[in-house]
């Protein structure tokens, strides 16, 4: 017994629509993070490699120590900060003798960032869940000034 032609047509049409729906859902889920782009503010000089007034592509999590992170520092379009992730959620952050220690290990290149407003020993503080402790060269817009960066502020990871 052969399958009637309209049934084959119906099954084929259903498969095509199902594939289209799966493709659309997958694209809507995975693609937006790869089209995330922000502009470096005009006066920005807090992190090497970022040129003011140029666009920067961002990617989605996961984030790791040493990654460049872009985040909101206010409501305006130019209120954007960039920093290097020094502390991950659950890490203990403290200043000892002017050095930034994360989990009792020195943060590389911390010295160029300077001290915390004249205080050489402070903490420890545990970085809360979903938050990151970020540092940048002159502490203009990093965690020393803004506190830990939360999920509502994070824009994405700076693409290499």
């Amino acid at each position: 017994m052969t399958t009637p032609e309209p049934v084959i047509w119906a099954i084929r049409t259903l498969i095509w629509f199902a594939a289209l729906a799966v493709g659309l859902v997958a694209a809507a889920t995975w693609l937006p993070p790869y089209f995330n782009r922000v502009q470096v503010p005009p006066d920005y000089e807090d992190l090497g490699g970022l040129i003011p007034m140029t666009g920067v592509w961002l990617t989605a999590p996961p984030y790791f120590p040493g990654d460049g992170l872009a985040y909101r520092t206010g409501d305006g379009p130019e209120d954007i900060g960039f920093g290097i992730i020094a502390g991950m959620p659950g890490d203990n952050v403290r200043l000892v003798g002017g050095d930034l220690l994360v989990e009792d290990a020195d943060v590389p290149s911390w010295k160029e960032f300077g001290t915390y407003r004249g205080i050489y020993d402070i903490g420890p503080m545990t970085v809360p869940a979903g938050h990151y402790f970020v540092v940048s060269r002159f502490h203009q817009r990093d965690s020393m000034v803004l506190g830990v960066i939360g999920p509502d502020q994070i824009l994405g990871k700076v693409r290499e």
Partner: protein
Amino acid sequence: MTSGQRNAIGFAMLGAGLIVLLISALMIWGGVQRWFAVVETREAFDQLRRDRVEDARKLARRAADRVPDEPTPALLAVDPTDSEALDRLVTVAANCRRHVDRQAVLAAIGLMRLAAGKPSDVQLEGTADGRLLQAIAAVRAGRDPGKLKLSKDEEPPHYQVLRAAHTVLMRWAWQEGKVSETRAHAGALLLLRPRAPEAPALHFLVGASSPVMPEADVIRLGEAVRDGRDGGVRAEAVIRAVAALLPMRRAAIAAKWPKAVEGLP
């Protein structure tokens, strides 16, 4: 194939198409609601950054009505003075699909119960939130909370629980005259929220309790407290409390603000 069979297949396909159309419409409606909820939640966060707590709660409540099972708008919408808010959070916790979301909601429930003077009564064993809530409960019961050292093996604490725990424990250590613990909690709060209204006072306390900070710098930090948003009577109280906690700085503070140390031994 007879015309009857053709008609049957046609009607079956029409029915299936209508069902698929209905499901699609429901999915699209759900997507639109979720989209509005995301926009409103984002706007609520913006309002929170501008210290407009009531506006943030209104927006978050609207978002929570659209997506009742989502924890973020539900948590943002919570008014600690509203007794029904706790019941709503219990429902949200029960419906949370992700473990991390459930932990966040349970931590908020525990914190709200403690703030209302009740036991936290939430299952948070093996998490930093659980230990922090226990420490807060110990202080509220008048017991020594012990040293607070969070382990790397535990799930990290949530922001509001950590902030509340450091605040309660700092106040307790301050009242007990434990300088190093007061300093540790003040330092943690300062690292957590360096732009908070109370940051100048915390900075003054951390600086004054540092054995290496010159007196001139300590006085400068004290002046920042007086010039800050909480200047006036509250600043006087902060300076007096720091002088009471730190006898080594009392002479320097007395030289600049004699009234702040009046009556202290």
